[in-house]
């Protein structure tokens, strides 16, 4: 039938739902509860469309009709969609982004770097800091840290030490150079080398543009360098950070003054874009009698001179006028120059804008504060200033700033003795240098620029920082510079400059109970020099955190931000429709996080009751571990009878996590403390069993984080998905080891290769080589080559393997995908515990398609029939098979397929089945090999014959010392060289151990139930070399020649890229090596 959708006529299928049609036509209709694998559920109300004559309907459950006219984005549909989303938002308890990040003017991902630090991933953390802060060491010292004010821990106790964490990471990563983007050939001029300009230059460079900074002062840094005293921010720290920028290729041009040496329009002519980050260097006077006296100095001038290295001689009594941070800096510098210092401030201490700790520290250093004190005249006697006449103030009515206005107390005049006065009553914007340029300026001289992009009235000119906002904190300027850099980048690439709206949900009114009453854990006190000591010089007085302290301080993070921040459909749709959180504001059930499951974390408050987890668990996985409970607004997903999740029938497949459209369910990464991170996914194949599932290895800059199914809709088992987590880095072998007495010691590669080579050459002719079913074809080929070179004969699997003798035509053995062609599937024998959920999900798909499944000895959900395994034995042994129940089923079927797992049926049975299948031309066989690459290795000549006379063993990934067959010969050998990723029984006994890459860290081919697959290293791992490289080096050491020294040549030599389906039934089984033993033991201990 034909229907019109959004004005286009398309062909629709009979009975098809509108949503399915739209998805086929690549028309995006937002939908939260609908998913292709599941029947329509009709609950979220988001997938609405307008149908002519029917009004607004749910597209997931409305079948198409002939000549239907559908509008997916009509105003009526959008109104309902928005209402549905806003209702869901009104009941959603969670933060898309952590409050610390929301509070940061530069949007620094505080939670991410704090949590990475908590996991000991310091460099990864620093990289996150650099995403928003180009000068982390400086800001880690001087930032007023609005993030800490927003930190939820503050509800219980002091906030997390976010600023200190930044300083710690920056001081750690001295060698790190942030990457720059691919060159674009565009060049941007930046005027002003302060926080705004440096930030703009940094991020422009990361976008690949050239950046030149012009600055009037002799050195870059702006107010960081010339305004902040050395004792807070050493010049050496700034220099070090500027050096990073210089090494990134940013050009510094100092001593160039805008309006004098170069004009804005000139820069516009010469560069592709201009960024103005001039700061606010003007100063405000007080207009008092005697103010023009030479001993009345601007605080900023004074600070600049001190920072430039001058140590002016100050008189005995100095008065600072003002109450901001500049006043504090001036006061404390004056103290350090030996003066008695009084700060005169016209309001009270509570209203003083200076940071509290600055005031306290100034007091500690002996600075005297006179509050409610307003100077009215500078008193001079000729050359010398004598004092300042002041008047006492009292607080009156609130003024425009909301603070109570100080008013003079009549007759309260008095004189403060002072030979010098430093004015710190405010900075102003001075844009006189822009006179004559076509820029729009505010009355106070500020450049008018868009806050989100820095766009000014002129196309190519952008501006940000204090010159736009007036004096503000440095991190504001960094944020402005960054936003402008992004906008300039979009401008230079011809994209829309405007910043798109992004929805961010927040928790309002969080209480101590909501944050789970965290155990008391105070901030870690960082050492500071005592006041009497520190006023003697300008050296930095505060210390940073050490490694241990940093980890402990970071552990205090409450992990507010959502793990699904970048994948949440609720957020994406809310963004697209510009939904608001508070349209339907009401009580939100403050459901708590549930972390009892070993791998799956539930943030129950974020659940939108779409039921995808419940339905996927039941209908896709055949498990039914969870269901809804409660009614109305209390409805929530629970394990039946409210038992703990892990006490359910849950098999830890994680399919519910993949199904969850929000952050209500997410799985643990390998990290101990969870961190919301943007991960990079690389598709590869799981090698933990013969199924060979397509997986995606998710990594952070090459470091393994988690595994997900490659296509998001298939199901993995607990072993494939979470098994790698359980290995833990403490079990990994990362350096070569050599036996020294009863223990193993770390050794260099050179030394270890030498030792191994010598020992194996000595044993030549009496060597046995072991491999495992996890080895790739390339690795297997090298093992076989080495074995041959050492006269060891065929390499062996690490256990007694077997193989079926019968061979049947290759086209009759199907890869597992062949199930989809069958109308009858006969499952023989049980499924192994780990593959169960994967096989069941495949079979459920086929059942839904209409195939009959008959199982012998297995409980397959929704099977047509379940029969005892002995009944199958009778079928096999009966002469007239057609008369048996199964025989009749087989006769009725057009394309019957037998399915079995090699590891779960005996050799005899396999042979008999093969024989039976071979006799009937319409029957086929699908089997799951016992290990990932059993087929490939068999082709390379791996055998199950253990050479018992061997004196030396080479074990590659295998763990023969743990196996019954191996153990009994262990005493006969005098050399054991092992390659292994983790410690095992074999490495304990070995003389030389080489580290080995995990399968997701190396490349190569395997041939499993799905045919040949190429493994791609999805993570860099802890090692520098992939396993095939280690084996090549060992072969080289053994003088085995010729060797294919490139991977492609090796791959070609191994010739294991399959050409013929799965090949004959000639596979051999092998028990997986130490990796799987380790994983399985750990999973078992977790009850899985």
């Amino acid at each position: 039938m034909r229907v019109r959708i959004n004005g286009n006529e398309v062909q629709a299928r009979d009975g098809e739902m509108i949503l399915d049609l739209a998805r086929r036509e690549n028309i995006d209709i937002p939908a939260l509860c609908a998913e292709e694998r599941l029947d329509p559920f009709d609950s979220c109300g988001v997938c609405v469309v307008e149908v002519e004559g029917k009004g607004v309907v749910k597209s997931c459950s409305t079948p198409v009709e002939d000549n239907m006219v559908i509008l997916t984005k009509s105003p009526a549909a959008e109104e309902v969609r928005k209402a549905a989303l806003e209702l869901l938002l009104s009941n959603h308890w969670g933060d898309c982004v952590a409050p610390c990040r929301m509070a940061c003017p530069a949007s620094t991902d505080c939670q991410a770097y704090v949590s990475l630090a908590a996991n000991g991933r310091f460099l990864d953390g620093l990289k996150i800091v650099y995403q928003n802060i180009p000068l982390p060491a400086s800001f880690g010292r001087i930032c007023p840290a609005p993030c800490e004010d927003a930190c939820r821990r503050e509800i219980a106790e002091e906030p997390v030490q976010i600023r200190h964490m930044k300083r710690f990471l920056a001081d750690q990563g001295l060698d790190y150079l942030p990457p720059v983007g691919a060159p674009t050939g565009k060049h941007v001029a930046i005027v002003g080398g302060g926080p705004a300009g440096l930030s703009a230059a940094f991020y422009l460079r990361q976008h690949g543009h050239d950046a030149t900074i012009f600055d009037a002062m002799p050195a870059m840094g702006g107010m960081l360098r010339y305004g902040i005293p050395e004792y807070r921010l050493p010049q050496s720290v700034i220099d070090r950070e500027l050096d990073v920028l210089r090494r990134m290729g940013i050009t510094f041009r100092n001593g160039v003054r805008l309006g004098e040496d170069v004009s804005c329009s000139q820069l516009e002519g010469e560069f592709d874009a201009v960024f103005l980050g001039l700061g606010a260097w003007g100063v405000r006077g007080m207009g008092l009698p005697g103010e023009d006296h030479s001993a009345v100095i601007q605080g900023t001038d004074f600070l600049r001179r001190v920072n430039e290295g001058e140590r002016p001689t100050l008189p005995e009594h100095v008065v600072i006028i003002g109450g901001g941070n500049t006043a504090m800096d001036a006061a404390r510098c004056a103290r350090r120059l030996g003066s008695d210092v009084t700060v005169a401030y016209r309001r009270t201490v509570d209203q003083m804008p200076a940071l509290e700790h600055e005031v306290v520290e100034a007091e500690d250093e002996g600075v005297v504060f006179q509050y409610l004190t307003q100077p009215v005249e500078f008193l001079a006697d000729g050359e010398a200033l004598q004092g300042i006449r002041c008047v006492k103030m009292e607080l009156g009515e609130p003024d425009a700033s909301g603070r109570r206005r100080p008013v003079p107390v009549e007759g309260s005049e008095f004189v403060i003795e002072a030979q010098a006065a430093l004015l710190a009553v405010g900075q102003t914007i001075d844009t006189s240098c822009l006179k004559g340029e076509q820029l729009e300026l505010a009355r106070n001289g500020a450049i008018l620029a868009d806050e989100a992009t820095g766009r000014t009235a002129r196309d190519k000119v952008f501006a940000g920082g204090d010159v736009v906002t007036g004096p503000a904190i440095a991190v504001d300027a960094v944020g402005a510079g960054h936003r402008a850099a992004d906008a300039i980048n979009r401008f230079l690439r011809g994209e829309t400059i405007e910043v798109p709206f992004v929805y961010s949900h927040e928790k309002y009114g969080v209480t101590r109970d909501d944050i789970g009453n965290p155990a008391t854990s105070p901030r870690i006190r960082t050492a500071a020099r005592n006041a009497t000591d520190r006023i003697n010089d300008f050296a930095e007085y505060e210390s940073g955190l050490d490694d241990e302290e940093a980890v402990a301080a970071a552990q205090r993070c409450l992990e507010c931000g959502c793990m699904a921040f970048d994948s949440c459909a609720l957020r994406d749709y809310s963004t697209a429709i510009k939904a608001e959180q508070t349209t339907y504001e009401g009580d939100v059930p403050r459901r708590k996080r549930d972390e009892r499951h070993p791998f799956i974390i539930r943030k129950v408050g974020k659940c939108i009751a779409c039921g995808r987890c419940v339905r996927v668990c039941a209908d896709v996985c055949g498990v039914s571990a969870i269901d809804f409970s409660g009614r109305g607004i209390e409805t929530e997903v629970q394990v039946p009878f409210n038992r703990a999740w892990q006490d359910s029938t849950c098999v830890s497949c994680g399919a519910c996590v993949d199904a969850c459209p929000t952050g209500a369910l997410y799985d643990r990464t390998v990290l101990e403390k969870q961190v919301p991170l943007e991960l990079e996914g690389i598709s590869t194949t799981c090698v933990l069993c013969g199924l060979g599932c397509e997986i995606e290895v998710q990594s952070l800059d090459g470091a393994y984080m988690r595994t997900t199914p490659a296509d998001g809709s298939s199901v993995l088992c607990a072993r494939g998905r979470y098994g790698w987590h359980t290995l833990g880095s403490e079990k990994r072998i990362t350096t070569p080891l050599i036996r020294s007495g009863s223990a193993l010691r770390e050794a260099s590669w050179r030394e270890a290769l030498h030792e191994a080579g010598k020992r194996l050459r000595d044993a030549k002719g009496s060597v046995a080589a072991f491999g495992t079913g996890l080895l790739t074809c390339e690795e297997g080929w090298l093992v076989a080559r080495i074995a041959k070179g050492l006269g060891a004969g065929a390499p062996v699997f690490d256990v007694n393997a077997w193989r079926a003798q019968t061979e049947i035509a290759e086209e009759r053995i199907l890869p597992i995908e062949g199930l989809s062609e069958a109308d009858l599937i006969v499952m023989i024998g049980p499924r192994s515990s780990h593959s169960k959920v994967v096989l069941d999900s495949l079979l459920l798909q086929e059942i839904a398609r209409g195939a009959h499944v008959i199982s012998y000895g297995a409980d397959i959900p929704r099977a047509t029939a379940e029969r005892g395994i002995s009944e199958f034995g009778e079928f096999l042994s009966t002469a007239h098979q057609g008369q048996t129940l199964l025989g009749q089923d087989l006769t009725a079927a057009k394309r019957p397929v037998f399915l079995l797992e090699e590891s779960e049926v005996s050799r005899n049975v396999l042979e008999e089945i093969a024989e039976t299948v071979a006799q009937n031309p319409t029957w086929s066989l699908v089997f799951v090999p016992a290990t990932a690459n059993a087929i490939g290795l068999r082709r390379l000549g791996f055998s199950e014959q253990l050479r018992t006379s061997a004196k030396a063993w080479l074990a590659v990934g295998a763990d023969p010392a743990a196996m019954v067959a191996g153990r009994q010969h262990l005493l006969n050998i005098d050399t054991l060289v092992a390659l292994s990723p983790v410690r095992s029984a074999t490495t304990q006994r070995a003389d030389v151990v080489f580290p080995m890459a995990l399968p997701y860290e190396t490349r190569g081919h395997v041939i499993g139930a799905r045919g040949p697959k190429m493994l791609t290293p999805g993570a860099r791992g802890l090692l520098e070399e992939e396993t095939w490289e280690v084996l090549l080096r060992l072969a080289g050491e053994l003088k085995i020649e010729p060797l294919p020294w490139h991977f492609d040549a090796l791959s070609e030599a191994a010739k294991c890229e399959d050409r013929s389906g799965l090949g004959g039934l000639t596979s051999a089984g092998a028990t997986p090596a130490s990796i799987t033993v380790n994983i399985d033991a750990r999973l078992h201990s977790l009850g899985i």
Partner: protein
Amino acid sequence: MSDIREIRVGLATCGIAAGAQRVYEALASSLKESGLDIPIRRVGCVGMCYSEPLVDVVMANDAVTTYGNVTPEDVPRVVTEHVIGGQIVEGLCVSTESFLSRQVRIVLENCGRIDPESIDAYREQGGYAGLENMLAQMSPQDVIEMMTSSGLRGRGGGGFPTGLKWSLTEREPGAEKYMICNADEGDPGAFMDRSVLEGDPHRVLEGMAIAAYAIGAAHGIVYVRAEYPLAIARLERAILDARAAGFLGEDILGSNFSFDIKIKAGAGAFVCGEETALIASIEGRRGTPRRRPPYPSQSGLWEKPTCINNVETLANVPWIIRHSAEAFAAYGVGKSRGTKVFALAGKIKHSGLIEVPMGMSIGEIVFDIGGGILDDRPLKAVQMGGPSGGCIPAELADTPVDYEELKKTGAIVGSGGMIVLDDSTCMVDIARFFLDFTQKESCGKCTFCRIGTKRMLETLTKICDGEGSPEDLDALVDLGEKVKANSLCGLGQTAPNPVLTTARYFRDEYNAHLVDKACPAKVCKSLLRFEIDPATCKDCKLCVKDCPTGAITQGDGKYQSIDPETCVQCGRCYQVCPFGAIAIETGKVNVT
């Protein structure tokens, strides 16, 4: 004495609750003591719940004398004076004339008249004759045709034509079909189905058997609330008797038609009255509705074609078969034919169960049958159709009971709950009351019902608490319309009705709450002020003693005064004041 044929005691749940069991026992022993052999029948509810316990003395000539509000102590007088003496006990006698004379009793034909536990009693009234005749003479198509021309529509609330529903199920291929009787009566204040099941269970079974024959079903299920134990017990008994008598089971009356019935007790979730949720519940799953199509007629219980009819609908069926479609269609108006049973509740004199021809006006029901408003206060509105029906204001009392006409008012016929409200009812509060019920009973599946009704309730609560603003009302109505339009099942689609109808007909009352911060009916406590009238106060200090928060203290003058800050508007002072000196005020304080 010898003229007395039998004595009937109403022993439905309403009667038992009023003490009818003890009256029955007293009557039995009294007759025995007097050596009288007069049969006592335990019958169901005749509908006059306001006069329970009821005792009918039935003469051989069918003349009935009804005694109401009978206590065990009254029994000896009835026996001595009436049964033995032949004199009607005047003071105890209640008139049934005004209550019954304007009713037309089809569904309730036997209720209160026959022993529900006796299949013979049912047969004596012509029971199962319809089934017998049908099996002998009619094809399933004939039966469907008859239902169609009778104009019978679903009495559970949907009003879907019964004949059409049957024919849709009949039309579906497949040998296995199900006939379900929906007895999950969940509306607060509604007890029509319960009374029928308790008073005349065989009628429902016969209706089911006829329906099953028409659609071709062999399996029947009565889905009944577990909160109706008496109805379940009587149904169980009736099923056993009907099976023994050959009206259920294999090869019924030698016709080759087989049909049997099981009972499924539901756990009392309101939403399980919804067809698809009911099916899920029978299948052992969580009782939540699902999308339609497929309709139950296509894919219902165990994915087989299934027909679900309400108790009252099915109770009409044997009558139609027995009396003809024309006889049924003779009652009613327009597209609403036959009769409808209503449960009268609220501020009405004759609260109970009635059955009237479709088309009778609401005013006639309330005043002519219902006897008018309690204490003769003015009628303010009638809540029709249960918690998800709508409020019909007094000025629309002429509206006839007709599916289409009622829908125009924003209310629905619904299953037949009728709650009568007088001027002491706050319409905002009543809307909140009903919405509170539906939002708690929401299955939680779809967004608009799960969250929308909750947000609406919060807004109503805000308004009742005097914290609303005029924009809140617009937002409330807007959200209500969205919930109505976009919810998955009938529960959500109708839940906003009380709010929408009260906002439509009683906008002034909402505005009083929103603008003047006043509750004109003086119900919303947050908006009330209790004040002491010094002229009436005798300074007895009873109120001072009873005030739980110590809000009443010596004021400026000699008399007590109530501190509005401390007062929690509990109303105890109002109740205890012997002089009526406490006044309840509402609205903003007039600054003079």
